[in-house]
């Protein structure tokens, strides 16, 4: 049994807690949150030991690993304290407010040899996993350009302010929404290391960006466009997609559907010349407990297995999240020039 504690029982925290609660190899030893009502419900109905001070929680409950699902601005100090205490960490995304912090945590995690993972769940989505394998096998030739997009209905009118609308807490479309797209590109193609131009635009929010448009380049010299808008109510929920253009073909993928075009007679097994369409249902492994998408259960299962020493712990490591933070910071700085 892996002893797990959780800090931050908000939307993502509760989702993690439910999946962890159903996991056969997990014992939930403590939950830390500052909302009294949430704590009351969790204590009374789930029977969890609850705390308002996370250091006290880890001292008393002695967890093997901790899930950190609080606003990003608290990640650095909390994750650091946990690593220093020899505790494995799963942190929510985006990782840190600036890449210096994420770099420090990456170095510390490596030094201590502790398991470290960040919640970029798209890497556990069947279609995107297939894209990764197609690219690793060079199947569309040399990649020349990409388009990474995400749209959804998060902020669709002027309204109340919360941490998501506070740039100093890690709010805003770039940090919260575009980070998914950037992380995916960094993983599938190569890390974004230049930004030729970017626009961070507020639409309904007062203090933060609601949309991000950027022209970027990657370490391998691929150019690309990022277009992300969380104020688009024509989408029922967040929709993330990527188009990758190569000399031998083209890939278009979202979390549901993968479309691949091959120009010539060279294509992987299971594909053919011209358009190929595959669905996530064919590319997804079943999970033991399903809550809101196989990927959420799969990423947690991967983390638990990593703690048990059964994986290489190289998907969504702190290091990859640090690179994503660096790319985010490039796009942000370019927009203020």
């Amino acid at each position, binding site marked *: 049994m892996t002893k797990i504690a959780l800090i931050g029982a908000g939307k993502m925290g509760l989702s993690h807690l*439910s999946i962890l609660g159903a996991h056969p190899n997990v014992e939930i030893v403590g939950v830390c949150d500052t909302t009294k009502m949430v704590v009351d419900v969790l204590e009374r109905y789930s029977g969890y030991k609850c705390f308002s001070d996370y250091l006290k929680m880890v001292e008393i409950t002695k967890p093997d690993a901790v899930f950190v699902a609080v606003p990003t601005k608290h990640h650095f100090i909390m994750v650091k304290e946990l690593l220093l205490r020899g505790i494995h960490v799963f942190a929510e995304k985006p990782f840190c407010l600036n890449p210096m912090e994420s770099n420090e945590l990456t170095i510390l995690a490596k030094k201590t040899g502790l398991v470290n993972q960040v919640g970029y769940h798209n890497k556990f989505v069947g279609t995107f996993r297939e894209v990764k394998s197609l690219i690793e096998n060079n199947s569309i030739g040399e990649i020349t350009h990409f388009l990474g997009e995400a749209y959804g209905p998060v902020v669709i009118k002027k309204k109340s302010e919360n941490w998501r609308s506070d740039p100093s807490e890690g709010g805003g479309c770039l940090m919260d929404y575009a980070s998914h797209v950037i992380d995916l590109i960094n993983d599938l193609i190569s890390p974004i290391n230049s930004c030729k131009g970017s626009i961070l635009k507020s639409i309904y929010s007062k203090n933060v960006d609601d949309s991000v448009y950027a022209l970027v380049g990657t370490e391998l010299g691929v150019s690309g466009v990022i277009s992300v808008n969380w104020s688009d109510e024509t989408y*029922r*929920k967040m929709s993330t997609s990527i188009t990758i253009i190569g000399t031998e073909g083209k890939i278009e993928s979202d979390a549901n559907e993968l479309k691949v075009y091959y120009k010539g007679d060279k294509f992987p097994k299971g594909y053919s010349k011209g358009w190929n369409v595959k669905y996530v249902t064919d590319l997804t492994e079943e999970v033991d407990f399903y809550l809101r998408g196989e990927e959420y259960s799969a990423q947690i299962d991967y983390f638990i297995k990593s703690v048990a020493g059964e994986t290489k712990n190289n998907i969504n490591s702190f290091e990859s999240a640090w690179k994503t933070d660096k790319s985010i910071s490039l796009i942000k700085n370019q927009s203020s020039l």
Partner: protein
Amino acid sequence: MERIIFGDNQFFAVNHISDEKSRAQSIKFKDDSAIIKTLDIAIASGINTFMCTTHDRIANICDIIRKDPKKYQDFKIYPCMPYAHKYANAVTDLGIAGTLKQYVPGNFVSSLLKGGMAYISKDFISIMELMIDAEMKMFKGINTPVIFLQNVITDLLLGLGMTEFLIGFAKHVKEKYNAEPGFITMNLPKLLDVLEKGGIKNPIICASINKVNFRMSGGKEAYEKILSEGRCRVIAMQVLGGGAIPAGEALEYVSNLPNVESILFGASSKQNIENTVETINYHDQQQKRVVL
């Protein structure tokens, strides 16, 4: 419950395999009249039960149904609550406490948050009851013999071990609405164990059941075993496995499973609706013949 139940995913652009198809549906069903027209086709095909989320637009559909009692006299709705994205978006925006404040009628939550009231265990069950009542408002005067809890909530509570809310939901639905409680889940084996332990025998459960093990968490074998034991009244959903199985083959499989009381499906075109109904009826008659 009737053998065939009509679902609502197609009306609200819920498509598990394609964003493009979802967009097309969103355009097709932009007007409420398009939804009603499709419902009328389903009724003409012999389906009289509509299982739908408590989406805002369902309130308009309920208005239309109430205005024509003669035409819809045998028509039943199985509400499925809540429309999760409404709350999910609200939680993103307002936090958990803020969301409760917004959606629970009256000043109940504000008083709780201010700490002006002493907490007693029943308070949280009462909040849930108020939320159920708020969701049920739109169905006033409409026959709703079974009321469902949506899978995202059922399964969230299941994972959190909050069985008391599942039992509380069942109790309130029975007592206040004189209806049968139903649970939608992606984790049938686990849920059934928990409900049985909580004293709910032979519950109505709507779960993903298909030939390819799609979203059948706990595994197809466990599902088939439960069906053969007849421990719950099952509505099979996602019978096409998210589009992975050809319709004929998918319906043959699910029609021939023991103890699947109803089959839930959604479709947009007249042809698809009629074909599905005919195919299920055909397999049911074949079954009867074998039994005789």
